[in-house]
């Protein structure tokens, strides 16, 4: 079990969110969509230019830019 940054996750990799460091509007937007500690996410894919990233959480698909993903730490196998 290691904690890595969401940006470093590979396609189809699954992990549990451990912390979300963003504050202010970005922090709020990220959390509103359910990116909070304890939730499981799976990387679904990346855009043709490798950014943004699409991930699966609570049964729906969410996209984030890489610089937004940087605020999110994930525990993976």
């Amino acid at each position, binding site marked *: 079990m290691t904690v890595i940054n969401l940006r470093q996750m590979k396609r189809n990799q699954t992990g549990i969110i451990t912390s979300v460091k963003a504050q202010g*509007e*970005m922090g*709020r937007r990220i959390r509103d969509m359910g990116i909070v500690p304890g939730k*499981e996410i799976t990387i679904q894919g990346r855009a043709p230019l490798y950014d*943004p990233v*699409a991930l699966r959480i609570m*049964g729906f698909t*969410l*996209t984030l830019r890489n610089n*937004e993903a940087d605020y999110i730490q994930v525990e993976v196998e």
Partner: protein
Amino acid sequence: MSIAIALAGNPNAGKTTLFNELTGARQQVGNYPGVTVEKKQGTCVSEAGTFEIIDLPGTYSLTAYSLEEVVARDYLVNEKPAMVVNIVDASNLERNLYLSVQFMEMGIPVCLALNMMDVAQKRGIEIDVDKLSALLGIPVIPMVARTGKGKNELLAQVVKGIDKPAAPLLISYGQDIDKALDEMEKIITANQFLTDIYPARWVGLKYFENDAQILELGADRDKETAGKLMDIGEKLHRHMSATLDTHPEGMIADQRYGFINSVLKQNVIRFAHDRNRLQRSDQIDKVLTNRFLGPLIMVGVLAALYQFTFTYSALPVGWVEGLFSWISGVTDAALPDGLLKSMIISGIIDGVGGVMGFVPLIMFMFLGISFIEDSGYLARMAFMLDRVFRIFGLHGSSVMAFIISGGIAGGCAVPGVMAARTLKSPRERLATLLTVPFMNCGAKLPVYALLVAAFFPGKQATIMVILTLISWVGALLVAKLLRSTVIRGEATPFVMELPPYRFPTLKGLWIHTWERTWQYMKKAGTVILGISILIWAMMTFPGLDDKTKAQFESRRTAITDTAPAEVLTEIETADKDAELSPEAREVTSALAGIDGQESLTRLENSFAGRIGKTLEKVSYLAGFDWRTNIALVGGFAAKEVVVSTLGTAYSLGDVDPESTDSLGERLAKSPGWGPVTAFALMIFTIFYAPCFVTVVCISRETGSWKWAAFSVGFNTALAFALSVLTYQVGSLIVN
């Protein structure tokens, strides 16, 4: 007495579908006072009673960060609807409940419309509706908005639930916050701080969340109490970041999800399969957002949208134009020659007709865009293109507006500006709105066609490619410039849902398309009519004095007097298309020449002509003489007017923009004209002030005349600078 209810919910939860299902065609669209957020209202007549329904903007949360959320919140506290119908997607329940929890925290009477039960069932999701209702303490009605199933039960429930006061939902946000909230609540209640509008505990919560709107309101009302609350908030913030490496705002969101999770975990929801299992929608995405296939398919979709909007609308556009030219013809025959006739035909009919000619185009465009948007593909386009557009301070969704405006030459900036509505981030949207007019719309094409044929014969394709590239590069660089100066600011977070693909409902598409088109048509009858008459007046007044008129008249009489009588009879009696004898042709062309010179003199003497002459003092830097200047002033009415005005200015009388051979030849022979001048003029045409219909749309879409004025002033200055550069550098190279 009708009952006021508000519809609220996440985007993509089916809110608009339910609204359409409930109200049918009985809708009014407007704006919330002072902002550009769209406000939809409708009436629903049913067995349960008559309801006045407000469709609140779709939001994920109730923060003060976005205009939509503030508008929704303000509406609920100020207008106090009898009930909030919170529509939630049953197949995506956990995240949808996040908004519901926030309504409940505010103590607003709310009932859940548990939509898309059919989709949830198909995905093996089972929901214990009664248990959910009991645990949340609010009514929950399962339904399928697309088919109208559950609609009557919902309305019956609304009637039953009215006048039952709701108490704010109390949830625990963790020990530290709860304790501080207790402290705040005491202070707030004791000082009656904003308690006339909001529940005390909720106000405290907003102080922890640093809610800009509430903080400002609080400081306005009672500085002392606000200061105390701020102190408590800051103390807690320091304490939490020191001990828990987190902050209250984050913790509150975490705990809301914690509360939802604790409710759902009590056997409220059961999944037959892993809920992150790939759905059909995800399988489609594997192809549509594939690294190689994705962009290719996107180009195809954009080309199809373009084809659909501009090719299929050609027929109805032709009908509308035909109708107006018929009206124009009838008026021409019915009224005596003179100013009144000229104003009615050139000012009113041509002006309004020109605007109405866009209506079929706008309808087709919105139909196409609504389909792409409602089906869920637009979000994928934004996803794939965001990396590129972000470099210039724009958003992935900007692409649609650029393409419609003429990103593929031949679009139109009017629907393009309106297409920017699909952008949800305010700064990116503004930058898009202001740069789409640089694209090569269909009305700029006749100008290019004329100049290319005259000065770059045989290079039509090459020049068009160059012009398209120049307009894209120019638009993107200007967007970047605007985003680093006047619209400076952080990029709005991209955080976006990729909704499952859905087949849009016909009813939804139709209502969507029609209301946008109708808004545009209403505008055509008012502002645009006024401006059209103003432009007509500028090109008509003050007109020729009697002496000059008499001079032209005597020149005409001189010709008709000297011509043999049988030739005159031949001209008078001949059919319109009949072949005239050589003598008769000589006479008619001599007369046409004098008519041409007369309109030239009249134009020269008009206000527009005087402006053109005055501008010549600077415009010579770009190689433009006063004739070109008048044409460009006329181009503010519509870009193709540049061609017809040039025709008048070179005394050719009326020139059909579709067949400009003779005008091109005339220009090529005129002194002062050459490839460099022509190219500088094309550069100017790309960048200068948008036509006034676009300007009116910009002011409408941005909600202020300030931005419309900016686009006229800034674009013209930029165009002038670029064309001077082109002309001066070009002249150096050529000579």
